[in-house]
């Protein structure tokens, strides 16, 4: 009886020890991590604007990203349908969160629409704006001067009263990369996003009237 108990104690101690060692994994150096990644963000360059009191209310869905660009790595599209991420660079948050915040900020600045996202589900909205990101990637050229970034986003404006798809446009932008480092690439992404924001803001201003006035 005592022998059996001691055997169980040893087994239990071994298991607990292994779990403890596993839990400490992130604290234990498992090799040379190298220099830390540079962390970048997408930021709309205009000041915040007070929401319109009379404009329609549109709920913005979390963007859906195609495989390959979804994550925190800065996606790179290589020749031969190869994909990878930039060495030494990462997004500050999940890319879908960055895109959603950027689009909301840009639309709030350039339109009279009241935009709500997650956290605003209890607000009665007139329309729902879905976003599908088809491209948000760095495309190296044959030389550094030919490097560029590509951004392509498809919007779906759905009227919630009758679940009718009002419009389904796609906005694409290419922007040249000025300097061949992480900052230059992200600057090109920001420039492409800003350029696209003018197009989809103009489009939403034209169609927002169909979402009613809430």
């Amino acid at each position, binding site marked *: 009886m005592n022998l059996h108990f001691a055997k169980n104690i040893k087994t239990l101690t071994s298991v607990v020890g292994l779990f403890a060692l596993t839990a400490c*994994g*992130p604290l234990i150096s*498992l090799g040379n*991590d*190298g220099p830390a*990644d540079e962390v970048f963000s997408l930021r709309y360059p205009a000041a915040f604007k007070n929401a319109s009191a009379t404009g329609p209310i549109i709920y913005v869905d*979390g963007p859906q990203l195609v495989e390959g660009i979804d994550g925190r790595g800065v996606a*790179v599209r*290589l020749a031969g349908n*190869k994909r*990878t*991420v*930039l*060495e*030494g660079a990462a997004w500050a948050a999940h890319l879908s969160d960055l895109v959603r915040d950027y689009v909301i900020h840009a639309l709030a600045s350039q339109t009279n629409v009241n935009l709500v996202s*997650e*956290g605003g*589900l*209890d607000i009665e909205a007139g329309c729902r704006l879905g976003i599908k990101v088809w491209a948000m990637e*760095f495309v*190296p050229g044959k030389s*550094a001067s030919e490097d560029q970034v590509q951004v392509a986003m498809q919007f779906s404006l759905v009227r919630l009263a009758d679940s009718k798809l009002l419009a389904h446009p796609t906005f694409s932008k290419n922007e040249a990369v000025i300097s*061949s*480092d*992480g900052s230059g*690439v992200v600057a090109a992404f920001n420039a492409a996003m800003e350029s696209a924001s003018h197009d989809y803001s103009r489009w939403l201003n034209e169609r927002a009237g169909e979402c009613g006035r809430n």
Partner: protein
Amino acid sequence: METRASHVLVGSFVLLFLAGLVAFAIWIAKVDLDAEYRDYDIYFDGSVSGLYKRSIVYYSGIPVGDVRDITLAPHDAQKVRVWVRLRAEVPVTEGAKARLEFQGLTGVAYIEIKGGPPGGATIVVEEDQERPIIEAEASAFQAVFESAPNLLNEAIAAVVQIQKLLDDDNILAVSNILKNTDGLTANLARGTNDIEQVVAEARAVLIKATDAADNISKLAASGNELLEHDAGRLVNEAVGAMQAATTMINRIDGLVAANEGNITQFVGGSLPEVSRMIVDLRATSQSLSRLMKRLEQDPAEIIFGIKEAKYDLKSRKAKEGGK
């Protein structure tokens, strides 16, 4: 001695021979010396080609005279005057008609006279006439001959039109139409079976419809019976249920009135929280979904990250064994 008696005999014989010759000629010519004749004029409109002097004149198919002369009418060059001589006993009365007829296809013409009504007055000569005039009428042959040139021209035009109609293109088109018609009739013949099937199915549907109508009629009868016997009880039960519902609603109304503040707080504060909680659950669900997906694909990736060749901007290459 001189023979004088022989001259008298020869002369007598010659005279007798000549008299016999004249009698023979009269017999041969069938000259009716006792016959009496009357002359008439007939005015025909248009041509009398094929009619000559001595042409025979018939009355109801009997030869009764002949044509004595053919000239143009004195006062009308469009007409032809034919002078005929008929036997006196021929009854040419008022209303008699003369027609120009032809014997077969030889082109020889003759005049046929059709008498007037019985007892009619005999035609007499007028003051400004040389002879009595028999009224002429156009025969069927005359009408045919007069219209023959036009008929021929029209026939030629018709032949030309038919030739145009029967050119190669139209013959080909007609041939195609006949082929299509043949195919159509064949399809129609094949489709007869389908039509029969459709008719049979329609008949079956009608039988079912009749059965359904009978059932509906029975149902209506049952409904009437139900209303007559059970309607009163059902109405009483419904009234009772309505009264109970009214009582319950009044109680709920009182309950709400007594707890209005709490309910308002719940609707204004708790319900949005529930919505936010749903949103958080959705986000958590998405994160867990991503995690499980990565865990399924490569569990080590969760701790050590994905092994991939990262792109180095300086060397412009994807480096194996990147950080």
